[in-house]
């Protein structure tokens, strides 16, 4: 049944090609129905799934027998979590792009194709298939940003496409090399993860594949596509980029790089420049991402860039959590993927849809004089809630996730944990600064008469926006108050035989 998440999305995209141009109502409905159906299927699959950590095979047929490529869809708790996230992000994204009027059907066709490929990546347990979906996602992203984007959209779109493509080329080298080396004529993740690749091979293949995926996860110093891409993208695309596309990268790091090449994480025989393993190298890069992203977010003039850099910072927690190689840290990382997907979606929704589409500016200096808290109280409240969630306030999902990562990191590398904690503090600062500048400037000398003028011209916050925002807030609260819902899915998956080599590498 879960396989239908992919098919429904692509069928939706294909059927949109036959909608009359200009008929935006039908196009929207098709998009909403397909994405809702995807979400419901994902949820139904989650309920059906027996969370004992086992692998549930959804479909498994030979695809290219000569090369041992199979069409294998399977899920474990981690995939289920991310499938649900994708479903939610897809539905809310449609709600937040209800006002698109320019080339509507193409917009939603690309949108659904993107969603379909994301589902495909999370479902695939054949590495070739996974790679196909992973690369398939590049093209819709490019066009969504290049056609419907704003600031420097063509530059941002091309940058994103090339970064993704370079990353996937790195991944492909590692995958083909592993396939050829194993010589078992199979791309099955389960089979290949059992093969004992030579240590020296893993020592170069692991960083290659990990970095290839991590490019899309926004790992410093390969993060630069993220702020530009997020800001240039139309609202729904930013929500998807931050919400699920960055998770594709993180998921690939965990599912492919770390599971296939666990020995790549072991200590080197001798230290190089103070580092003793790739674990430390990538851990450090993750921490730099956390702190650097937060500090840069602190000085941005463009509202969307603040959120864009905050994504880099929050994704750093995911990578740091993965590098702890402990159950608590890695489950925190997966939880953070989910949590950040929801929160980033909410933040981009407020900034891109509620604020930018009405004020037509994202410059904090210009927003400052508009007194938006009066003009659009709903947006202000939503953003405050989202900001609290983003800075890791207890009660929201971000807190649980980042807390777990920090606990894991404290055991693995204490210095990094302290630095990451510093990142959280800066996170509070930039969030409060953005809230204050964008919504709550009380200095009357700055708030001129134009503010009133603006508030009259601004349309009300529409129902789809309210529904979408409320749903996202409800989910982050739900997970924040009762994280067991997801942890019960994630932890058994981390304890499964697939991950045993990995945990062994961490346990030493």
């Amino acid at each position, binding site marked *: 049944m879960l396989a239908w998440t992919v098919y429904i999305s692509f069928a939706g995209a294909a059927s949109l090609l036959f909608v009359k141009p200009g008929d935006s109502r039908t196009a929207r409905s098709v998009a909403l129905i397909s994405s809702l159906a995807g979400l419901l299927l994902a949820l139904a699959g989650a309920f059906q799934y027996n969370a004992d950590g086992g692998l549930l095979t959804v479909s498994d047929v030979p*695809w*290219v*027998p*000569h*090369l041992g490529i199979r069409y294998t869809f399977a899920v474990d708790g981690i995939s289920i979590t991310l499938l649900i996230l994708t479903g939610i992000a897809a539905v809310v994204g449609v709600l937040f792009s209800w006002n698109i009027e320019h080339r509507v059907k193409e917009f939603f066709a690309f949108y659904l194709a993107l969603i379909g490929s994301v589902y495909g990546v999370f479902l695939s347990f054949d590495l*070739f298939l996974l*790679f*196909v*979906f992973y*690369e*398939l996602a*590049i*093209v819709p992203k*490019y*066009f969504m940003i*290049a*056609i419907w984007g704003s600031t420097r959209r*063509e530059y941002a779109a*091309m940058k994103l*496409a*090339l970064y993704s*493509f*370079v990353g996937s*080329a790195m991944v*492909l*080298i590692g995958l*083909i*090399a*592993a*396939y*050829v*080396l194993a*010589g078992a004529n199979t791309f099955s993740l389960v089979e290949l993860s059992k093969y004992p690749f*030579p240590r*020296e*091979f893993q020592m*170069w293949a692991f960083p290659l594949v990990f970095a290839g995926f991590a490019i899309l996860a926004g790992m410093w110093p390969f993060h630069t596509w993220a702020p530009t891409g997020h800001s240039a993208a139309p609202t729904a695309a930013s929500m998807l980029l931050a919400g699920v596309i960055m998770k594709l990268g993180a998921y690939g790091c965990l599912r492919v790089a770390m599971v296939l090449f666990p020995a790549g994480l072991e200590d080197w025989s001798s230290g190089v420049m103070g580092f003793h393993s790739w674990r430390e190298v990538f851990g450090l890069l993750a921490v730099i991402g956390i702190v650097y992203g937060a500090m840069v977010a602190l000085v941005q003039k463009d509202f969307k860039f603040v959120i864009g850099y905050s994504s880099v910072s929050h994704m750093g927690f995911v990578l740091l959590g993965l590098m702890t190689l402990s159950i608590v840290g890695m489950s925190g990382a997966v939880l953070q993927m989910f949590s950040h997907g929801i929160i980033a979606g909410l933040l981009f929704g407020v900034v891109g849809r509620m604020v930018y589409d009405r004020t037509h500016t994202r410059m904090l200096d210009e927003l400052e004089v508009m007194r938006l808290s009066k003009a659009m109280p709903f947006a202000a409240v939503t953003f405050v809630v989202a900001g609290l969630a983003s800075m890791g306030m207890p009660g929201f999902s971000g807190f649980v996730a980042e807390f777990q990562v920090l606990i894991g990191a404290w055991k693995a590398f204490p210095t990094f944990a302290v630095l990451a904690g510093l990142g959280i503090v800066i996170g509070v600062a930039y969030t409060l600064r953005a809230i204050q500048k964008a919504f709550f400037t009380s200095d009357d000398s700055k708030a001129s008469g134009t503010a009133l003028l603006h508030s009259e011209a601004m349309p009300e916050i529409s129902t789809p926006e309210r529904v979408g925002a409320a749903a996202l807030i409800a989910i982050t609260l739900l997970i924040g108050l009762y994280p067991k819902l997801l942890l019960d899915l994630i932890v058994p998956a981390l304890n499964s035989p697939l991950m045993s080599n990995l945990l062994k590498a961490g346990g030493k």
Partner: protein
Amino acid sequence: MNFTQLLTFIAPETLLVLAALGVLLVDLSTLRDEPLAVRMRWGAWLSVMGCAAAGAAIVLSPASTPAGYLDGMLLLNPVSQLVKVVILLLTICTVLISIESKFTDHAGEYFALLLLATVGMMFLVSTENMLLIFVSLELLSLVLYVMTAFNKQNIKSAEAALKYFLFGGMSAAFMLFGLSFVYGLSGELNLTKIAASLAGKPLDPLLIVAMLMVVVGFGFKVAAVPFHLWAPDAYEGAPLPIAALIASGSKVASFFILAKVMMVGFAGSEGSGAWRNFVQGWVPILAILAALSVVVGNVAAIAQSSVRRLLAYSAIAHAGYALVGVLAQQKSDGLSAVIYYVTTYALATVGAFTIVGLVQDRTGDDQLSSFAGLNRREPLLAFCLLIFLLSLAGIPPLAGFFGKFYLFKAGLFVEGGGGASNGLLWLVILALAMSAVSLYYYLQVLKQTFVAESAPESIIAITPMTTRVTLVLLAGAVLFLGMFPNLLLKPIVAALSGGQ
């Protein structure tokens, strides 16, 4: 073997020659006073029928076991039959996209020459004799020189043909010289026997010179750097269907025979192209050619503003990718990867060239800016172009992706599982890095097509139905071969295990 047997042996080629003569005859006699459009249509459909008859002759008498005639002079095996069918299909596409062309009023000669070029390609893939290889290569080349110059109103066409001819003549001389060395060393003309007679001996310096010269000849045919200089001009100046043919059918045939000569004829003199571990032989020579082609082709393509030249440089790059398959250590795997790759590449290229031609007809040139807003004017064309170019860029689920994947997989394989860290890893890494570059320029074209708004004065014209259908079929083939690679892979693998 008597003449009846010989005739059944070369029935497809004979049918094609008859069709060529028939086209000439009909055009000269009954259609003398008809308008050009009618003559083109007659010529085209007669040619299609000729190709279809030849194809039927192949399909209806499949060679279950390989058979040879006159010491490998003519060879009938499942692989060559498969490649011939591919060549015939590509010729049919070329014919169909030329129906509405207006660059020449010599309809009969045009189609007759096209069919003769096809005969050249078909002989090329069905022989193991070096002399016949050379003769059919010349038949193919001479026809292509003439056809490149076929547009008499366009000075660029003449320039392109002259360049093509001069480079071609030179490289043919090199090749013949090289072949004569090989004959001198081995005393044989048959590829298998050459290999047998050279086997076990230490690598003769003269043989290296001979291999180098043969590589020059083939390098020119497949447009590999540094023998590529004719390609951008020929692709830009030649009449469009001919540019498509040079890039598709001729490529398929040349790559097949290149792979065969190297893999069969020079078996045993491979050497090694492993990083920092080069051993003399043809593998390092071709590896260097491949690396140069991939880099020069992709990097030069970025700078092009003419889409035809862009496709020409990308063709050079693709020749580099395909060479990786020729270098594969497991030869049957490498050969099937090469066949799969060049076939799907040819399909996508013919499609892309057709669309470039249509745009050129409408707007007067093939600059990138002419593609602005194509999506608005002709959504079907734009969608097909999307599929063709993304397939060339190697984006899944299109055929080009699987082709590239298979090539690189074949290229990395090392006998005895000696670890993927040696072998041709360096070349595969280089090729993959450069394919990231290629995405950039393909997206430049697609950006114009989908993102840029159209210029107001652009003319909306109706694309002829035959062209439309051809394009849709080509796009469908590229899509389906990508989603179900087995459709093509299975026959290739079956043919390779049955023949050879």
